[in-house]
């Protein structure tokens, strides 16, 4: 087993990693930190970070490991949020089923989007996903159940498995943490699975992968659907945390935001999106209290990253570590 601290997956197989023990310690420390965090920081803020971190990780699965840049992931995030909110509020489903309904919707959407979008690559792919997600935006605006501009409000958090009362902020936090971790682990595993190997091969050289007998569209589609489902999970959880689902979650600016998080943290690294999401969410909540215009600052970071910092924080650090090694 290769246990690497940076999990870039590009270094050779079987090379003994000197960072095995520090890596494990690092993970444990991070977990401990996550468990203790709500006693020091505002839990809702932390939950928001976790939701967006999961969202960014899901997005990153597609761009970083399948080489497909979706500019429409808000559709899955927001779509799932709406369905979860509706399920919890109107159908009065318990939270676990409400989340399941949201994730299911995102998966279906992912299937449809994916089937259409993987016909093209690169910028075309980005534009198609963007346009399709805009369609979901308009649907969210017009469908009767979404509440138009009002969104769905006052969503009950309910009791998880009939046991845990999620109205308690701490309980909610640990539930979110658990969901985030399971999402994160799924992604981590997927990246290092037989499937992940094929995906990497496709990203590197698609015609060659085809000539080896892989039906690459199916792999790309599965990656897309997986990514959509996990983005949906993030959206569903967010709907329960904030007890509402609104248009903001399905706008294309939201799709752009998740790109920024991933770019800032480092595309194609496992931890990058988490770092990026934490940073962006923290920055936004800090900026909200200053008179600085948020979009301008976010846009400036975008431009900065694209021009000078394309590997992102984690990517750069990994690069430095690699050079020293």
């Amino acid at each position, binding site marked *: 087993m290769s246990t690497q601290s940076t999990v870039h997956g590009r270094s*050779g197989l079987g090379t003994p990693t000197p960072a095995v023990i520090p890596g494990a310690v690092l993970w444990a420390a991070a977990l401990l930190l996550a468990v203790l965090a709500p006693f020091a920081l505002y839990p809702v803020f932390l939950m928001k970070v976790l939701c967006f971190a999961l969202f960014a990780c899901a997005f990153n699965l597609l761009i970083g490991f399948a080489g497909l840049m979706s500019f429409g992931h808000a559709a899955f995030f927001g779509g799932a949020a709406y369905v979860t909110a509706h399920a919890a509020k109107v159908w009065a489903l318990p939270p676990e089923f409400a989340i399941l309904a949201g994730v299911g919707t995102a998966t279906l959407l992912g299937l449809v989007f994916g089937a259409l979008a993987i016909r093209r690559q690169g910028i075309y792919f980005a534009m198609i996903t963007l346009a399709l997600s805009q369609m979901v935006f308009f649907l969210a605006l017009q469908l009767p159940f979404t509440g138009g501009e009002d969104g769905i409000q006052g969503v009950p958090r309910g009791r998880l498995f009939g046991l845990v009362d999620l109205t308690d902020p701490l309980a909610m936090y640990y539930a979110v943490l658990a969901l985030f971790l399971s999402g994160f682990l799924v992604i981590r595993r997927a990246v290092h699975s037989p*499937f992940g*190997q*094929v995906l990497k091969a496709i990203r*590197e050289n698609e015609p*060659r992968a*085809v*000539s080896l007998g*892989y*039906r690459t569209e199916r792999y790309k589609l599965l990656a897309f659907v997986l990514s959509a489902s996990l983005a949906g999970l993030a959206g569903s959880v967010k709907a329960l945390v904030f007890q509402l689902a609104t248009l903001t979650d399905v706008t294309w600016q939201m799709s752009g935001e998740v790109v920024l998080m991933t770019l800032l943290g480092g595309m194609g690294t496992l931890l990058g999106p988490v770092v990026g999401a934490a940073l962006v969410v923290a920055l936004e909540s800090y900026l909200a209290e200053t008179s600085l215009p948020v979009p301008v600052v976010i846009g400036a970071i975008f431009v900065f990253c694209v021009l000078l910092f394309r590997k992102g924080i984690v990517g750069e650090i990994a690069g430095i570590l690699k050079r020293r090694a």
Partner: protein
Amino acid sequence: MAEIVLEARDLSKEFKGFTAVKGVNLQVRRGTIHALIGPNGAGKSTVFNLITRFLPPTRGRILYKGRDITRARPADVARMGLVRSFQISAVFPHLSVLENVRVALQRPLGTSFHFWKPEASLHGLHERARDLIDAVNLAAWADRAAVELPYGRKRALEIATTLALDPEVMLLDEPLAGMGHEDIGHTAALIRRVAAGRTVLMVEHNLSVVADLSDTITVLRRGEVLAEGPYDTVSRDPEVREAYMGAGHG
């Protein structure tokens, strides 16, 4: 006469009114090395792409082991044992040499969609992968990223990867293009070695290698078959000399 393993019947391809391949009939016998030559733009690569289903033909049929594969998907063609290489080197640059070969070995396992399985489930393939890597003299490079290989070694890796699929028919598109003299000799020998027990269809400009390796040669010109036969016959054909070889060869 040996069995025909691959056959093209009246194969044509038009690109927006421009006919790149015109009624080509091609029969490849099992166990032979069959070369496809012709001037640039004669349609060699196009024929290749048609046979491996990377391009849909405008007209004509392709038969593989007697089965019509004209409408099959490229990936399926590969699964049936008809595997191609590319004119420009085709490796997975940021995978290691071992992983490059393993990707090819992994498909028959049937776990390629299993995103929940650990990578370790693939380790059973390493032994066979290393054997193949040895076979093309790449053992020293096994753990290096493919991008770091010199050009000729990449071609060797590509052949190892192709062999990993244990193909019945290998299609090689200019396997020697861009190689230095040393590499050419080495690779030609490799092709001869791996061709044992298989069928090879290759496009190649290097006439001396073609002469040396191939049992049958088909000459294309402007999308049409100009001549076919063993090297000696073909190279004496005045039309072939005029269209392709010129006064200098043969």
